[in-house]
């Protein structure tokens, strides 16, 4: 039968074609892992496109940052690391560094100095929280609210989250203890400086959970960054926590009736790591990319596309206007002095020590 022969021939050809294109890594390709969505887009515009233009390297985007730690462990075990540069939050970078899955970086050797000659180490300053971590942006987790659902007095304090009398309705909180425990203690009368001291003790952890229990029935727990913006746009919740860049997008780009708080915003860092165990050729390329993508101008460029603060001190004055909307981006940065009046720095050491313990308690409490 003619048809069958054609089918068989096509099968053979397809398999053969597949074999030929099974190239693995050619010298002119690199895989960069990030978070996807608007964030990846900002990196594409600010870093990938100019780098591809300059060097001719083909960059493949993988949107797997959410499971970067697990995947890097698996790759390491399988002896087949396919990623060249990975975008992770600082806490993940610390874990990867401790496990030897990320390469150590010498800032002054591998990163560009500031235009005025300041060394990279000084330019990034305290934000280099791990030997393997190359900071990229400062973002914050904060609270957005529906302007049409909060009545005449819009919330100004983080404690509005716990005030179901003044602001009735559902709230969205992240399904993990980090940030929620700190906010609960702050609103339960603990002074900001003492939050982590209190949280070290069993009583303190219980105090935070008890405070959260007062609103437990009104909470929708989210796990993906896109959840809270969606719930806000739906009018499903009156307020909810999410990343400040997501709220910027909802408010300025999507024109939803949403406002945001900067009170007690929790700063966190996001940046690059280079996986350990790359071949020399790929390592050289990854380092070359990092040197290019984290210089003062590139970091400032990224803020044209998303409202996250560049991690270099020298980039701050270069922050310009939104690429499409043409509005000034500086007032939307979490690091802007007006927004950073009352901030909270995520305590990496504390959470590195206590995370497993408090996670277990939190999950048990959730299940009650």
């Amino acid at each position, binding site marked *: 039968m003619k048809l069958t022969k054609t089918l068989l021939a096509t099968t053979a050809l397809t398999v053969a074609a597949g074999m030929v294109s099974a190239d693995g890594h050619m010298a002119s390709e690199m895989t960069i892992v990030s978070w996807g*969505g*608007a964030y990846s887009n900002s990196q594409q515009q600010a870093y990938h496109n100019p780098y591809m233009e300059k060097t001719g390297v083909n960059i493949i985007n993988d949107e797997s940052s959410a499971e970067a730690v697990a995947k890097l462990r698996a790759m390491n075990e399988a002896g087949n690391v396919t990623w060249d540069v990975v975008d992770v939050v600082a806490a993940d970078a610390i874990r990867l560094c401790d496990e030897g899955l990320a390469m150590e970086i010498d800032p002054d050797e591998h990163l560009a100095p500031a235009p005025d000659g300041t060394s990279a180490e000084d330019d990034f300053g305290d934000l280099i929280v791990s030997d393997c971590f190359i900071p990229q942006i400062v973002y914050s987790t904060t609270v957005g609210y529906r302007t049409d659902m909060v009545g005449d007095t819009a919330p100004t304090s983080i404690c509005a989250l716990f005030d179901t009398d003044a602001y009735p309705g559902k709230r969205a909180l992240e399904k993990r203890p980090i940030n929620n425990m700190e906010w609960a203690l702050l609103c339960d009368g603990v002074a900001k400086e003492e939050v982590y001291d209190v949280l070290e003790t069993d009583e303190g952890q219980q105090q935070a959970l008890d405070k959260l229990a007062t609103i437990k029935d009104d909470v929708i727990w989210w796990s993906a960054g*896109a959840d809270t913006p969606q719930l806000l746009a739906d009018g499903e919740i009156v307020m909810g926590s999410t990343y400040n860049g997501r709220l910027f997008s909802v408010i300025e780009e999507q024109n939803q009736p949403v406002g945001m708080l900067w009170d007690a915003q929790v700063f966190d860092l996001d940046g690059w790591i280079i996986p350990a165990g790359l071949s020399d050729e790929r390592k050289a390329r990854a380092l070359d990319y990092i040197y290019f993508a984290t210089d003062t101008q590139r970091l400032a460029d990224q803020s044209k596309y998303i409202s996250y603060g560049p991690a270099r001190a020298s980039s701050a004055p270069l922050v310009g206007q939104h690429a499409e909307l043409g509005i000034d981006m500086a007032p939307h940065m979490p690091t802007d002095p007006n927004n950073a009046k009352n901030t909270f720095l995520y305590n990496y050491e504390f959470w590195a020590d206590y995370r497993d313990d408090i996670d277990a308690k939190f999950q048990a409490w959730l299940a009650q």
Partner: protein
Amino acid sequence: MAALTPISRTPVSFYVPVVAAGGAIAGMFVGTAQGSTLLGILGGALIMATAAFLLTQVIKAEKPGRWGLLVLCAVAGFAVGGLPAGIIGAAFGWFFGWFSFWLYEGRYRAYLAPYLTPGQVLWHFSFRVICGAILVFLITPIIVVMPLSFNAQDFFTFTPEMLRFDPAGYSLKHYEDFFTNSDWQGALANSVKIAPAATLLSVSFGTLAAIGLSQPHVPFRRAIMAILISPMIVPLIISAAGMYFFYSRIGLQGTYVGVVLAHAALGIPFVIITVTATLVGFDNSLTRAAANMGANPVTTFFRVQMPLILPGVISGGLFAFITSFDEVVVVLFVGSAGQKTLPWQMFTGLREQISPTILAVATILVIISIALLTVVEMLRRRSERLRGMSPG
């Protein structure tokens, strides 16, 4: 269908409460939407009971009465919630007008056998209502996606403009995004490359395996069959993790060949099962007859056996294709970003950026699936008709 049973009018004490119950259910939805479920149930029951009584006992003329109720409900709906509510109101008015007379005149009894007890009549209609409810339950999630994909906003939300049927609330921009965005087009291209290749491999190997395993003299048939079918039974995540480590060692992880082979392994069980099922009805004396007339085994296979088992091969191939086309877990492990398929892109899209483009893609995929199934079903019927197996 001719009437089976002579019908007679039913007493008020029967049909008014039944219409009231229907009104209560409709009222429950309206009331919940307006904020008070209880008030909706009571109001719905009361209004519809009154309407049924007035229609049948006071107005009596069926046609004007039913039209009147339809218009009245439409106007009431329009007054409450504009055009969409008006349409829903008209639907309610049409239904309850028909329902009242259907019960009052006893028409529901006409096409049922005369010997049925009232309980059996009740079950006859309950059964249909339950089946309808199950259908609605299964199909609603798919239907809801479609209008949302025309949303003018970037959220999964029915905006007030959409609910008013305002054209400004609708747009094709998510479809445009799908057809112009390089991420989505790359994913589509990968899916279109991988799925047919995996299907061809599954169909070839699956058919051969099914034919081999249907020979009675093959040793360990059951054990071999169980192993070949295992990808269907073992949890996908376990196959995926196993494939990841195995393929990494032999250099297939992150290649097209790797993904195609992995998907072929997932598709083979479907082909084996459907082909084995058609082989049960296959008469082996036909192959012996062919051999007797001088045909070699290959010719026998293509000229005699293949045409007869073709329906099984095609439906197995269809399942294999859909398995590969819809698969997300294995490709996340075995593939790398270069082999990103449509489901992968949808998966990351849902997690990182809830964008209605995903819904636009889903709508397109649903339409493709329906078209594919329709074509296969039509081909099947045509071949049956040609072979005289069915009168249709």
